[in-house]
């Protein structure tokens, strides 16, 4: 498994839409545990109140990420392989949207 960052810019209009997408994403990720491991996501506040995400996944291949996105109905703008992690502080507590 390799770690990837996946950019899904401005994919959702409302938190509800995003939440529904998250549920689909999780459901499909659990169907392919050897290929996709969803680590965490940062929700992006895009312009006009839209939401996007930067998702950190472990995956067996970029194709697995695309297949997962296709089945879960998620946009993919770009997939980037993560070369290393530099941890300075733990993630802050939940940010209220």
């Amino acid at each position, binding site marked *: 498994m*390799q770690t*990837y960052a996946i950019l*899904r*810019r*401005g*994919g*959702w*209009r409302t938190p509800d*839409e995003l939440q529904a997408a998250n549920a689909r994403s999780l459901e499909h990720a659990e169907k392919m*545990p*050897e290929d996709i491991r969803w680590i965490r996501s940062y929700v992006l506040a*895009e*312009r*006009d109140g*839209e939401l996007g995400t930067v998702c950190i996944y472990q995956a*067996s*291949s*970029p*194709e697995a990420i*695309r*297949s997962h996105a296709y089945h879960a*109905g998620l*946009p*993919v*703008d*770009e*997939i*980037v*392989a993560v070369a290393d992690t530099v941890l300075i502080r733990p993630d802050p507590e939940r940010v209220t949207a």
Partner: protein
Amino acid sequence: MRLLERDSVLDDLRGALAEATARRGRFVLVAGEAGVGKSAAVRAFCEEARGSARVLWGGCDALFTPRPLGPFLDIAEELGGELEPAVNEGAPAVVAALLKLARPGSATIVVVEDVHWADEATLDVLRLLARKLGQATLLVLATYRDDEVDRVHPLRVLLGELATLPQAKRLTVPSLSPEAVAELAGSADVDAGELHRLTGGNPFFVTEVLASGNGAIPPTVTDAVLARAARLSGEARAVLDAVAIIPPQADLWLLEAIAGESMEGLDASLGSGMLRPDRAGVAFRHELARLALEASVAPQRKLELHRAALDALGRPPGGVVDVARLAHHAEAAGDADAVLRYAPAAAERAEAVGAHREAAAHYARVLRFGERLSPTERAEFLERRSRACYLTDDIDEAIEAIEAALGLRRKLGQRLEEGESLTWLSQILWCPGRTADSVHAARQAVALLETMPAGRELADAYVHHDWALADRALALAEELGDSELILRVRTIIGRRDFANGSEMLEECFERAQAAGIADLAGDASCGLVTGALALRRYDLAARYVDSGLAYCSDHGLELYRFYILGYHALVELDQGRWDEAAAAAAAVLRIRRASIMPRITGLVVLGLVRARRGDPGHRDLLDEAWSLAEPTDELFRMGKTVAARAEVAWLMGDQEAVAKITEYPLRLAQEQGNRSALGELAVWRRRAGIDDEISDADEPYAAELAGDWREAAKQWTQLGCPYEAALALADADEEKPLWQALTELQRLGARPAAAIVSRKLRELGVRVPRGARASTRANVAALTPRELDVLRFLSDGARNATIAERLFLSSRTVEHHVSAILGKLGVQSRGAAVAEAGRLGLLQDP
């Protein structure tokens, strides 16, 4: 270990827990063979239940004399309290203490593992508990190996009693399906079907073998098997030994002949669960268990058993001898005469049914016992072994065998056979990429055989040395009246002249099938695929892939099957079906074999799919492809790799790299008059700004090189290659074709190429909405890429006529798209659609 195919068991356990929590106590027996994963399933369930229930855990032990109330001693030790004194008092006290543990509100789970080993008192506790837990918040889980509980086992009585209680339930944990075994094997380099057969789908064995990593039986498996066998009586153990010696199954008549008086132990050995009744006899439940036991039989005893088996199998009751089994026991009994009598016949029979791997093994057996063979006989067996190894793509073994044969032929001065072997060696050497050695051997063969009267061997040498000599070979074959040779030569001519028509090669494929010449049919089917691919006849190629894979799978032709799988990935890629192409390529890359061409193809296809999408991970793939292709110095294997690397360099904007990568192969293509490779490479150089003034390239490359992007795009579209067509359009310097190229590239998900075209459009002063993001976002509103294109024009206020012109559509079609867009966005007007699209972010720049 991962839990596969355990959902139904877990669901049942959850149901039982829910009942128990509601004060309807439950007793669940979890049955399954040793190693099937009963404990793993129960453990997973308890982990999940731990939040809401208390879990107590005890196990029975496999001692000849188990500890009385052993599992409850375990629990008491962990828990303390009232249970501790109770285990010294006996079963009723233990039951009372356990029932007192149950508290309302949350359930208590008591797990008792391996109750097939339970002592009498533990069975009493279980029996009483089952009867009394009806009102308690108690879930009792007892696991046992159902394959070890024979008719007289003490547990039988308990099982019978529980069957009548409504609060008791029995679950069986099944073996894994072949699919689950394949999933466990994952990317490990093993044959999942074979692994399933070896292990009978038993997860313990599967994981042990996978963990061992080398295909040998891991010590943990051996220990588990031997521990089980050690508990049996002497006679039962003797039966096991005998059955272990005579795979795959022991017919009763055979077992009687070998085990003799020990047959009395048969019932006990069946009761052990290691054996199962089989057609006319018994067999091991798991092949791995058999292997472990076989390895443990003392050498002298083993020899005796094999001799007895050889003797009995030589005179079977039905009169039909099984040469493969005889060959096996002949070798194990160290009986050279018997090996030489049975193994060659076994090899031929294996070949006849397409079991080339087994044939190769039988020939190896003959050669191991071949001290008495004459050198000529020995050489013949080596040659046959080499052919069998080749067909299963065991190239190293094939080369080793034929080189040994060649040495013998030389020593014997058998020059005709020497020439024949050289031709054969040449053919094998090509597969792993030893091109120079291959050409050298073919040349030697021709030179040698031309000094002798012309015959079949020379014709064969001609066609393998140079396809240009095939006509001479055909004349010779016809002169000799050798129909198989004629067919072989015609197959090569059919491949060579495929561009003039597919009929000849198709006919050869059919004739070879009809004549039962499997290797030739496999070769022809492979040739059909490459031929259709070279002509870009994807309809034909897809058909040939199907028929070729079916034939090769049926006839054990792994070599050709592997090649066809690789080409299949290319067929998908060229047609712009990137998901399918990537999946096909990944399938090829999972197979580790000696031939390099399929691997090169798989690496190139997967590398290109990633690079074209802008996904990471393409560089390593293409580097590996190049490291395999470059040493062959052969355009056939370097061409696609070079073109792929040039494309990636172009996508990255590295024009210098394009020039450098293509320089040498381009010269090679010019020298060899390979018009297709020449065109492909020259087009990439042209895109990078290098004009080579090539005039003899194949179409559509020729049109592209001449700057006729319109014609090139038309041809690519007709061929069914959308990406290539879009790139041809991208060569234009006008708005319309560039728009068309951009739209198509976005549809394909070709991000880097789309960016190049966008840039070109902007340089022309055209306002380009940055579409790559919008196209991925389209699924929010469920718009198709085409509808999204129309939407972009709407936002510019364009009228239907303008949109139709820009997108090469009829006005009617545009009208249709517009109304679909309004419907999907839930709006009434074009203006409202644009507003809504803006709100959805379908139009915005990143």
